[in-house]
């Protein structure tokens, strides 16, 4: 019996006193109650102030109690834990609000009519109209940009991984990295400077060129990562059979990594689909349907959102349309993202056995 008593005692002497698991909740409840009391007593109107007082009380209370019972090091640990949680909650609030508001306001006017009509005969401040012309423009511009950007990006990645040695490869790697950071408006200005030289009017394909510039470095980086995951044994086996390098790349390396490459390209499409600035400079926007990306101003979804917001002088109808277009754009981007990640998981590169 005495033996058992000693065994039961020993851990507590070794570990020192600890607060019970429920103590954070108790301190939280206590500080909330006190904060509510202070708020009522001082007649503070804003509930945010109540919350702030409660949060401060919680931090002070945790530190005080933990320092008394567990020691100061443990108290600091608890403070750090609560701060990390606070940061997390702080960050979640705006992000949740963004998604919530977009969905809630977006569904108001989002229907089949909205998706299949243009703004051709509708003034910006009146209700009605739709985003068909913008969707059409966006799809064409993004498709053209992908047709230019994706092959160049993939080929560059192949060069870097399969052939690249020496200073050219180093320079390309460095500038691809730097290129990822080019602001989209600068890419737009670059194409604009070309258009000014040749005295051209805005048209869809000019926007595609700027989008392609923004897309290339992203494709290069993701493809590079994927190609590096292909085990060398596969390449060596193929080369050892006397198969030329280019066929090895086309028939062994690319098929092995095609899932990851597709994912990278889709993610980059999702990124350029939301770009507004270059489209604003180069494609200009157009309330009418223009299916020809090589002539005349076109619309695009992100640009449509911006113009509905900025050119409508605060009309509710225009804001509703802007939210609905935002919801469409977010849905498009998110679906691309989810599908891309699905492909990545489904066709994960086979790395050895």
């Amino acid at each position, binding site marked *: 019996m005495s033996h058992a008593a000693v065994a039961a005692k020993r851990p507590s002497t070794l570990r020192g006193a600890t607060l019970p698991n429920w103590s954070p909740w108790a301190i939280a409840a206590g500080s909330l109650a006190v904060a509510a009391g202070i708020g009522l007593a001082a007649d503070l109107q804003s509930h945010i102030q109540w919350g702030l007082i409660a949060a401060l009380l919680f931090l002070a209370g945790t530190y005080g109690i933990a320092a008394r019972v567990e020691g100061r090091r443990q108290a*600091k640990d608890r*403070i750090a*834990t609560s*701060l990390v*949680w606070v*940061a*997390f909650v*702080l*960050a979640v609030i*705006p992000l949740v609000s963004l998604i919530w*508001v*977009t969905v809630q306001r977006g569904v108001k006017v989002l229907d089949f009519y909205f998706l299949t009509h243009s703004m051709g005969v509708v003034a910006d401040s009146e209700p009605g109209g739709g985003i068909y012309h913008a969707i059409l423009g966006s799809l064409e511009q993004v498709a053209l940009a992908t047709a230019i950007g994706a092959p*160049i990006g993939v*080929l560059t990645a*192949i*060069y870097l991984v*399969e*052939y690249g040695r020496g200073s050219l490869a180093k320079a*390309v790697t460095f500038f*691809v*990295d730097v*290129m*990822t*950071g080019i*602001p989209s*408006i600068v890419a737009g*200005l*670059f194409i604009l*400077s070309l258009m000014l*030289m040749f005295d051209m009017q805005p048209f869809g394909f000019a926007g595609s060129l700027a989008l392609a*510039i923004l897309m290339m470095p992203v494709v290069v980086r993701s493809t590079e990562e994927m190609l590096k995951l292909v085990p060398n044994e596969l390449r060596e086996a193929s080369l050892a*059979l*006397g*198969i*030329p*390098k*280019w*066929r*090895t790349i086309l*028939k*062994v390396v690319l*098929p092995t990594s095609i899932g990851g490459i597709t994912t*990278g390209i889709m*993610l980059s499409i*999702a990124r350029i*689909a*939301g770009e*507004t600035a270059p489209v*604003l*400079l180069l494609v200009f926007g157009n309330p009418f349907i223009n299916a020809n990306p090589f002539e005349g101003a076109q619309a695009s979804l*992100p640009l449509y*959102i*911006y113009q509905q*917001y*900025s050119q409508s002088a605060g009309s509710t109808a225009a*804001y509703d349309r802007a939210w609905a277009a*935002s919801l469409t*754009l*977010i849905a498009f*981007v998110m679906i691309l993202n989810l599908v891309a990640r699905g492909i990545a998981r489904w066709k994960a590169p086979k790395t050895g056995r």
Partner: protein
Amino acid sequence: MDISTQNTHVPPPTPQRSGGTRKRGAGATRRGDQIFLGLSRGSGILLLVIMAAIAVFLTYRASLAISKDEGNFLTTFEWNTGLQPPVFGVAVLAFGTVVSSIIAMAIAVPIAVAIALFITHYAPRKLGGAIAYVVDLLAAVPSIVYGLWGALILVPHMNGLYGWLNDYLGWTGIFSWDEGAPRAMLTVGILLAIMILPIITNVSREVFRQVPQMHEEAALALGATRWEVIRMSVLPFGRSGVISASMLGLGRALGETMAVATVLSPSFDIQASLLNPGGGTFAQNIASKFNEATEFGRDALIASGLVLFVITLLVNGAARMIIARRKEYSGANA
């Protein structure tokens, strides 16, 4: 020929066939290899050419504008490209860009690091994975949607904060407020912080995940608390990664166009207070002045874009240098 695809899982095919292929295709092989190498090297070179062309063309158009500028391009507080002779300068824009980015970084970096720590060290593993996934998705939300949200939702909600700052910190001058609509630098900074939070979180998370397990276990074995483990082994290891992540975020904040253009009500002067509307940023100025600009006005905007290009180039180049020291993590695919 399907031989090579089979090779991925099947050991050597029959010798006769591969021997045959080689003899028949020896000449074509060389040529094929050369064409393919040419193509892939060509696209690499094309990327370099594009970068060079961006610099050259922007500089050329900018020089057309700046040569006619009657003011000092770097120090003038005006943007009158329509005047004869034109007077314009980027001082206000440079100030606004730097201030809004500094506010954004001051808010975003600590919070992003805390979220990264939360995902890697505090949250239960499944919750951490889910949050990491959501943060990934949020990085994909287009900036114009952040802009719309900022202008229609965030701005009206800033009145309370502005009033509070004015009441208690108004005496500093930086936080005094004339009760105008809160479309000022502070709101822009907060919105930019929300926008760059995902990318900084993503890169920092990758770095924290690569902290050697042994370091953490050694600290734990010595009796360190979780916070002490983070302070002594995780943060020192991740410092350079966090710095480069922040600089990537800074690059985004500097070049952000639409979110600033929708939220800020611009003017061509420098406000001492962060709460009073006014000022502008490079990208915002280009987007809002573009429609009314003449060809000369566009050249002037291109000149301001060139300054932005050089600044982001420097920031990104520096970030890459820091990353290059530790090759394992690169933020480019984040």
